[in-house]
């Protein structure tokens, strides 16, 4: 299992060099963005990129011919996503700290929460899509994201920041816990759905 997760690093050797400049770009150019937004970007980068390598039929034939079970392959994707997201967020936090950009723990928590929610929706969808379409889906998604990010950021600035403030102020342990609970449940359901889809896939 650890081998499957480590595989993502070997595959992305070169893209990883892009990771830090990518985050730095957001830290400097995206000064109008909320910090949690950058955490979402950072957390999303490696797992989704890794996923795009796995969309090919050939890769699935390779993985399924090696001594791994389909259950393990899916598990490595979901566990790996959490692992790489965590590492990415730690690196991003360090960069924030070094370049003196203000952020709060709530930014990290919300960033991680949104990222996990995105994973929960995108992974099963990707497993459903025909190979070859995921690249297109990601590209379209990304373009939409860029186009909409302006209005979205404004929207978030307007509405979500108060929500965040609200959460901060009212911040009871219960609210965080229920948020975490919902996301965990979402992630778990997504995992099970992906597992079912993948089990039936033919290569």
């Amino acid at each position, binding site marked *: 299992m650890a081998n499957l997760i480590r595989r993502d690093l070997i595959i992305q050797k070169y893209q990883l060099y892009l990771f830090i400049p990518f985050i730095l770009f957001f830290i400097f150019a995206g000064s109008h963005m909320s910090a949690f937004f950058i955490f979402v970007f950072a957390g999303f980068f490696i797992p989704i990129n890794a996923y795009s390598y796995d969309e090919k039929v050939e890769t699935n034939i390779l993985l399924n*011919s090696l001594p791994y079970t389909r259950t393990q392959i899916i598990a490595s994707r979901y566990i790996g996503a959490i692992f790489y997201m965590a590492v990415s967020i730690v690196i991003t936090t360090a960069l924030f700290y070094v370049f003196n950009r203000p952020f709060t723990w709530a930014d990290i928590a919300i960033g991680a929460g949104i990222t996990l929610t995105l994973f929960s929706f995108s992974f099963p969808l990707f497993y459903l899509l025909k190979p070859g379409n995921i690249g297109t889906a990601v590209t379209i998604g990304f373009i939409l994201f860029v186009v909409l990010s302006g209005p979205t950021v404004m929207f978030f600035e307007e509405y979500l920041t108060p929500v965040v403030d609200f959460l901060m102020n009212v911040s009871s342990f219960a609210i965080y816990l229920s948020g975490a609970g919902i996301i965990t449940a979402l992630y778990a359901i997504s995992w099970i759905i992906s597992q079912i889809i993948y089990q039936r896939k033919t290569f």
Partner: protein
Amino acid sequence: MENVIELHDVSKSLKAFTIHNMDLQIKQGYVTGFIGANGAGKSTTMKLIMNLLQPDNGEINVFGLDYASHEKEIKNRIGFVYDSNIFYESLNLKDISRIIAPAYTHWDQQQFKAYVNQFDLPLNKPMKKFSKGMQMKASIAMALSHDAELIVMDEPTAGLDPTSRRELLDIFQEVMVDGKRTILFSTHITSDLDRIADFIVLIDEGEILIDKPVYELQEQYAVVKGSNELLDADTEVYFIKIERSPNGFQALTKEAAKVRGVFGKHVVIEEASLEEIMFYMKGARNLYG
């Protein structure tokens, strides 16, 4: 254990075609050549054996184990080679081996390096820059470097030049010397099999037509040539498929001894090559099927 692979009554429906109640045993310690035209069902059968496809019905055992509860153990003991490149195209061989190696409990890095040297493969060049032959050799190097007991190869010699093909056949024979290994090898280049195959399985339209040791094929099957007057309702029964021309007939028989007895010196009887057997068997099916 005598059979490494056992298929019992396996059925699988795919869009293109179906496999009906297939029974197949692959014997331990031997090379089995799997032949058939393109689209005959070779790859599908291989995929069933590798558990890339699950059968709709029937049972598949490898090493006497079933995939439902022993998938990892089975695959740990199999080396695989497919007819297309399944490795990450942007990675070089070194990185690919770093992904493959830890998956196996018996990975032998020395062995892998020895094959890489023998095949003259560059370690730092991305896979997509490899020629088809180099990709195949890389794949074979990995399949043979983890002490696999069963080596499953789908068209391993496709895309190789004659020198490389010979080199590979030598290696396959070398790995067979200790008697622990089994090779299942699909190809439509039947001359590869003349040399190393112990058993021949011929498949057509998802159905196994022949499954025999090579010497039985050589003894029983023959191409018979003679003049048309020799053919009548009584004599035609000895042939699987007859091709007539104004100058005489050519036919395939699987009763060479009987034909020799009946026709004696009136006909020419020649050992049938795998290619001829394949050709006539397929022709016979198109005729009656």
